[in-house]
């Protein structure tokens, strides 16, 4: 097991990509913290992780709130005494054209998608620095590269995550902490279904060069690799996992 005994915190861990990442980490022997705004769903994923034999803790968190992220860190350290892996997956995906987008929506997208990365880094990096090791993996998006009509705030927030990851990688490299991003293409989760019909979602998911529907487990595979010892020399990168839809 590649992550035996490591402590992994996954924000947005209660569903979709975050759930697959959490369960993948649990399967590889990590102790997992399922951090999500939806406490019931987080507890249910923690139960699934325990059924795989992992130690798991569910914590309700709003990643855009500094006190809430601080509580997440305190509960993590209280239960497990350390943090080795931080996966920033919590995010929102709000649809509206730029001209009618409200300032509240814009702020919400940035505070959660990008601000969550910042607040979680600030809460967990000091412990990683002390132990001279750590892995931070942020979930960006193919849309960071391509843009997407009516999702300008989402696209900008995900592109900003890539910039943040590259800067943080340079800042934390001397402490043996790697920082990378994964840019998934559209995956078979609830997220795209919030704005499109089932038929439209499936047609879009199948329209890839590989003709393979991108599943949350495909993303989890790359996150597990970046969290493992095998990726100890990789930092500051944004790896695309998208069935060949975007090559950049």
């Amino acid at each position, binding site marked *: 097991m590649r992550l035996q005994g490591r402590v992994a915190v996954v924000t947005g861990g209660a569903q979709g990509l975050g759930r697959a990442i959490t369960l993948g980490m649990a399967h590889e022997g990590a102790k997992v913290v399922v951090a999500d705004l939806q406490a019931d769903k987080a507890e249910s994923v923690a139960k699934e992780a325990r059924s795989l034999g992992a130690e798991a803790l569910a914590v309700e968190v709003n990643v855009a709130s500094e006190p809430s992220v601080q509580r997440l860190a305190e509960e993590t350290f209280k239960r497990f005494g350390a943090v080795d892996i931080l996966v920033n997956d919590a995010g929102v995906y709000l649809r509206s054209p730029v001209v009618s987008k409200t300032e509240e929506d814009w702020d919400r997208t940035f505070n959660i998608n990008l601000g969550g990365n910042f607040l979680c880094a600030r809460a967990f990096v000091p412990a990683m620095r002390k132990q001279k090791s750590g892995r931070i993996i942020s979930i960006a998006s193919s849309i960071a590269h391509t843009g997407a009509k009516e999702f300008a705030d989402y696209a900008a927030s995900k592109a900003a995550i890539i910039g943040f990851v590259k800067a943080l*990688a*340079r*800042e*934390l*490299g*001397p402490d*043996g902490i*790697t920082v990378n991003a994964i840019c998934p293409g559209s995956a078979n989760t609830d997220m795209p279904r919030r704005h499109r019909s089932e038929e439209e979602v499936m047609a879009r998911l199948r329209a*890839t*060069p*590989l*003709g*393979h529907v*991108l*599943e949350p487990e*495909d*993303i989890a*595979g*790359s996150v*597990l*690799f970046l969290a493992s010892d*095998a*990726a*100890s*020399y*990789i*930092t*500051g*990168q944004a*790896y*695309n*996992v*998208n*069935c*060949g839809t975007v*090559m950049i």
Partner: protein
Amino acid sequence: MSQVALISGGGGGIGGAVARRMARAAVTVVVADYDLDAAEKVCGEIVRAGGKAEAMSVDVTQAREVKALVTDVTQRLGHIDVLANIAGGSFYTKRIEEFSWAEWRQVIDVNLKGTFLMCREVAPLMQKHKCGRILNTASNYGVTGSALRAPYSAAKAGIIAFTRSLALELAPDGILVNTIAPGPTDTPRVMEKETPEARKQRWWSAIPLGRTGKPEDLAELFYFLTTPESAAITGQTFHCNGGLI
């Protein structure tokens, strides 16, 4: 049935590490290299460690030799599941006006044409089986450019675009094609030309992780891109450089 990986440049630093990593995962490796002695040395290490490997000689710039190599491998082992194109090199560091046409052609041919010739021969075999992984080797210089390495930088940039094109071409057949772009890596060939101290001075402060790469760092990435975990990844460039770029 054991998987078979054909590795060009398998006798070199990165190629040898990739061959050893694949063999550790019970893959039968064909270590192909211009330098047959180097290929045999790598094979010997693998076999002594309990793995399966065969050494073969090839000049990847020669279409006839590449065809003969691939025919030989398929006759002996039946199939090729992974093709890792690692043969290459920059060979020269000099100003553009000092490059002869022959030198330019040599660098472009070994790096880029060799990758094309190997893919041209192996892709049809993979298409028959409707699966396969092709891994091409670029460099950070293929993205940033490098003063005094114009043909090498051009060839490596060409490999990135070639990979994307081939990925689109072979996707309907379930074949994944990706590029690995190493940063400064401590291979024996590089270390012959530069003392560890000079290397440290040149690179370490520029690399956030504070060291140059080891062939084994790259080998892990090559291996990951042959596993089921990377089944949704094609046409991509994977930098592995300690954060240099």
